[in-house]
C-alpha cells in the first residue's frame, strides 16, 4: 500500500461522519461579503494606496508617458535597463541608458548587473494598491522584474480594478502571477517595517490616463 | 413570569451578599424570585479541567431543578456560559436523549443578570444609588461568550451618584481562568499585575464586574497590596439604594 493510498484512505476514514450523499456545494458558503470596497475614483485610490507603501506614483497622459519615463529613468541615473519582450516600443524613449531587451533571453548575470527594469502590468487593484504581473508581453519572465533594484511599472488607467475579487476574475491562474504591493519589506526586526530586503527596493508606478473619448461632431 | 435564582456554588459559599443583592433588586423591580433549593453547581470547574463525566450529574441536576421556570437568573456570566454553551455538549456526549431535551428546554432561559435586566425586563435604570468612583471590568465570559456588550455599563450609567471611570485595556483577561490560576500561577499573576495597574491608573475606589471569580482574583491581589480599592459585584451596586448594605 503506497502512501498516496494510505493517506487518502486515512482521510476518508477520518471523514466517516460526513454523509455519503453530501456534496461540497451542500456546505453553504455565504457570499454576502462585498465584491469591492473601492471608492468612486478607483484610479486616485489606486495611486494613493500604492504611494502608502513608499512607492512613487506618477500620473500622465498617453502623450506625456515617454517623457515621464525618460525623466524617471534619468533621475534614477539608470545605466542598464532590462526591457521585457513585448514592452510597447512607443512608450520607451531613447536615453543615456542601455536597453537590454530579453530577446534572446538575458542571462542571470546580465539581469543581476542591470540596475533597472521597466514593465507593464496585467492589472492594478485600487483598494490594496497592488500591481499584478502575469509574465505576459511587456512584463516578461518573472526573474526580470525581481533582480534589478529599481522597478518602473507602467499601468494604464483602464487596467485598474476596484478590489481583489474583481481582479482574480480577470487573472488567468495558469500563468505565473506576481502580486506586487510596494517594494519589498520586512517587519522581522522588532516589528520595525524596513523597506527593501530582496526584490526591487525602489518601485515607481506610472499611471497612463485613458484618452478622453473624442467629441461627437 | 416565574423567575428562579441560580446562585452558583461559588457565590453561595463565598459571596452570599451578591445573591441577596440579586433578590432585593428583582423584588424592588416588582418581581418574585424563587430559589430552588435542589441546586448545587453548573459543573464548570470539572468541565474546564477536563473531567466531563464528573460534570454529568451536575448537568442533570441543573436541568431537573430549573425545569419549568420562565427565566433563570444568575450573577455569574461564566456559569451562565457553561450552562448555555456546554451543558448540551455534556448531555450529548455522556447523557441520553431525555437529558438532551431537558437541557434544550432550560438552557435558553438562563440569563446573566445584566442580560436579564436589559433584554428581558427591558430596564436599564433600576433605581440604584451608589455615590462612589467605580471602574468596570468586562469579564471574558460576559464579553466574549455571552456577548452582553454594553449592558452592564448602561445599567451602571443609570445609577445615581456614581462616577464611572475608564479602565484602560479593559478587554484584557484578568488571568484567573479557574484552575489556570493554580496550574499556571506565574502567568496568572503576570496578567493580574497588568490588570491591577490599570485599576490603579483609573483612579477608581471600587472595581465592579459581572463575575465574582474575577473579582476574587483581582480583589485578592489588590487587597494583598493594600491598594485601598474594593471589589463589588455589579448586582450589589445595582441593589444599593442608600438604605441598607452596599
Amino acid at each position, binding site marked *: 500500500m503506497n502512501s498516496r493510498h494510505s493517506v487518502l484512505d*486515512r482521510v476518508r476514514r477520518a471523514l466517516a461522519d460526513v454523509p455519503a450523499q453530501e456534496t461540497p456545494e451542500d456546505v453553504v458558503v455565504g457570499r454576502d461579503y462585498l465584491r469591492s470596497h473601492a471608492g468612486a475614483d478607483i484610479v486616485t485610490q489606486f495611486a494613493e494606496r500604492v504611494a502608502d507603501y513608499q512607492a512613487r506614483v506618477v500620473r500622465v497622459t498617453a502623450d506625456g508617458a515617454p517623457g515621464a519615463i525618460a525623466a524617471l529613468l534619468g533621475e534614477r541615473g539608470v545605466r542598464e535597463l532590462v526591457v521585457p519582450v513585448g514592452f510597447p516600443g512607443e512608450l520607451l524613449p531613447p536615453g543615456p541608458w542601455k536597453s537590454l531587451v530579453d530577446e534572446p533571453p538575458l542571462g542571470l548575470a546580465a539581469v543581476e548587473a542591470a540596475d533597472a527594469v521597466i514593465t507593464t502590468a496585467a492589472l492594478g487593484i485600487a483598494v490594496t494598491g497592488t500591481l499584478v504581473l502575469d509574465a505576459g508581453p511587456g512584463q516578461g519572465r518573472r526573474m526580470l522584474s525581481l533582480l534589478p533594484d529599481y522597478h518602473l511599472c507602467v499601468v494604464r488607467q483602464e487596467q485598474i480594478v476596484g478590489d481583489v475579487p474583481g481582479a482574480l476574475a480577470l487573472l488567468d491562474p495558469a500563468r505565473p502571477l506576481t502580486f506586487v504591493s510596494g517594494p519589498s519589506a520586512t517587519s522581522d526586526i522588532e516589528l520595525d517595517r524596513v523597506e527593501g530586503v530582496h526584490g526591487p527596493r525602489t518601485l515607481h508606478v506610472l499611471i497612463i490616463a485613458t484618452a478622453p473619448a473624442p467629441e461627437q461632431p | 413570569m416565574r423567575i428562579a435564582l441560580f446562585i452558583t456554588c461559588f457565590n453561595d459559599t463565598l459571596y452570599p451578599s451578591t445573591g441577596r443583592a440579586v433578590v432585593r433588586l428583582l423584588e424592588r423591580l416588582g418581581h418574585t424570585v424563587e430559589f430552588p433549593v435542589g441546586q448545587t453547581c453548573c459543573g464548570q470547574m470539572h468541565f474546564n479541567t477536563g473531567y466531563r463525566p464528573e460534570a454529568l450529574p451536575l448537568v442533570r441536576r441543573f436541568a431537573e431543578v430549573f425545569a419549568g421556570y420562565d427565566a433563570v437568573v444568575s450573577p455569574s456570566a461564566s456559569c451562565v456560559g457553561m450552562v448555555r454553551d456546554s451543558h448540551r455538549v455534556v448531555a450529548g456526549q455522556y447523557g441520553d436523549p431525555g437529558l438532551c431535551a431537558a437541557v434544550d428546554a432550560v438552557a435558553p432561559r438562563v440569563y446573566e443578570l445584566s442580560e436579564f435586566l436589559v433584554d428581558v425586563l427591558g430596564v436599564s435604570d433600576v433605581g440604584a444609588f451608589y455615590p462612589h468612583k467605580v471602574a468596570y471590568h468586562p469579564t471574558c465570559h460576559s464579553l466574549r461568550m455571552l456577548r452582553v456588550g454594553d449592558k452592564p455599563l448602561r445599567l451602571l450609567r443609570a445609577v445615581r451618584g456614581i462616577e464611572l471611570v475608564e479602565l484602560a485595556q479593559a478587554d484584557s483577561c484578568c488571568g484567573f481562568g479557574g484552575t489556570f490560576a493554580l496550574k499556571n500561577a506565574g502567568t496568572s499573576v503576570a496578567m493580574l499585575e497588568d490588570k491591577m495597574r490599570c485599576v490603579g491608573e483609573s483612579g477608581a475606589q471600587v472595581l465592579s464586574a459581572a463575575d465574582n471569580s474575577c473579582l476574587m482574583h483581582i480583589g485578592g491581589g489588590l487587597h494583598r497590596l493594600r491598594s485601598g480599592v474594593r471589589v463589588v459585584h455589579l448586582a450589589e451596586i445595582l441593589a444599593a439604594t442608600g438604605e441598607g448594605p452596599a
Partner: protein
Amino acid sequence: MTTTPNGLVWLDTPAFPRAARAALADTALRANLKHATGTIRDKRLAVTGELTDWEQLRDAGAALKRRTLRHLDRYLVELEASVTRAGGTVHWAGDAAEANRIVAGLVEATGECEVVKVKSMATQEIGLNEALAEAGITAYETDLAELIVQLGRDRPSHILVPAIHRNRGEIREIFRREMGRWGRPAPDDLTDDPRALAEAARLHLREKFLRAKVAVSGANFAIAATGTVGVVESEGNGRMCLTLPRTLITVMGIEKVLPLWSDLEVFLQLLPRSSTGERMNPYTSTWTGITPGDGPRDFHLVLLDNGRTATLADTVGRQALACIRCSACLNVCPVYERTGGHAYGSVYPGPIGAVLTPQLVGVEHAASLPFASTLCGACYDACPVKINIPEVLAHLRAEVVEHKRRTHTLPSAEALVMKAAAGVLATPRRLAAAQKAAALAGRLVARDGGIGRLPGPLHGWTDTRDTPQPPAETFRGWWHKNREQS
C-alpha cells in the same frame, strides 16, 4: 504515530507551566513581546476595521475551509490531477520521516548538495533541515527571521515573525558571529539599525539566491481546480526561491488545499489584514506546474499528512485545520504575550499551537498545552476563519484527562480533588455540609476577615492574593431563614 517527530515538539522543553516560568522572568523577552504584539494588534484592528464586511468575509472563510475539509479527499485528488496536468509531480508523505526521505531523494537526484528554503513551517515541523544535513545537504533559510533563527542555532517562537524574541542588538551579534560561517560575512562595522541588518541579510543571501539550483518552499494554499500553488510573503526571498532555481520542491500540509481560484478572493483579503495588519503584503506569487522558459523546470509538490488525518478524524478538533497561519491569535493572546513561543515547546505556539500540536502528535505528547490558557476567547474573536479555539481547548483538556485515566496516570491530587468536589456538589445537603466545614476552616486560618498566605497546595494562589473568609452564613442559609415559605 509511533514516535514523536521532534521537529514539531521539542522534547527538551519542560511542560508549559515550568517553561513559562523561565520566560516570565526574562524581562527583555517580555518587553519585546509586549511591544511587538501590541503593535501588530493595533495595525490589525485598523485594517480589519476598514472593511465593513469583515464578519461576512470571516464567515465565508470559515465555510470554505469547512467545505474543503469535509471533502478533503476529493480536493486532494483533484489537486494532484491539476498539478500533474500542468507539468508538476505530486508526492504523498504519510509522516515526517517519509517527507524528509522524499525531499532528500529529490535533491540528491539533482546532484546538488545545497538548497535554499522559503516560508515553510511545515518543513520546520518535520525537521527537514536536520534530515537533509544527515544526507549531506545544506539547507539555507532565506526568510530573514528564519535566517536569524538558523544562524543563532535557535528555534522559532512565532508563526509570522519567528525571531520576535530577538531584539536588534542580539540580531547584530548573531550576524557578526555567524554569517561568515554560512557564506558572506557581515560587515565589520555592522550596526544594530534594522536597515543595516536587513542590508547585511540582503547581501549575505543574494549570492545564495543566484547560485541556487534547488529550492524548498512551503505553500499558503493550493487550488484544486487549477493546480495553482501560492506563497504570500514580504521580503522577496520567496520570489527568488520560486523563480531562480531549476528545481522547486514545495512541502504543503494537506489541509492547505482550496477548491477554486475564485475562493482566493476571500483568503487574499483575510490573510494580509490578519497577519501583518496590511491591506496587502508586498509579494504574493502563484504558479501552476511548469512554465517553460520562466522559472523552475521541475516542480514537485509534497503533500504532507503527519498527523493531519488524525486531527481530521476528531469532529470537534478538526476545525484547527482551517488555520491559515496568520498568527492573529498569538498577537491577542494574553498568555502568549507574556511567555512567548518557546514556552509552548512546539513549532506552532500560542493559541493555535495549543490546539493543533496536541492533535498532530497525540495529546499525551503535548498534555500541558491545552491548559496553557484562561479560555478568555480573544483568539476566537481574532481568528479570520473563526476557529473556536476555546471550544477545542476544552475538548482537548477532556481528551488529556481521558487519556490519563486510561493509562492510570492521572495526577492523584488533582483527581482526588475533582472526585471529592463532585461528591460534595452531588446534593444540596452535602454541599451545605461542606460549606459548614469551609466556614470553620476559614475561621481557623483567617485574620481580620481575610485569608493570607498559606503553605501547601494552595500556595500558588495565596502567595500573591488574599482570599475573603467564607461568610458564616451561606446564601442558601440566608434564604432558608429569610425567604423560604415554611
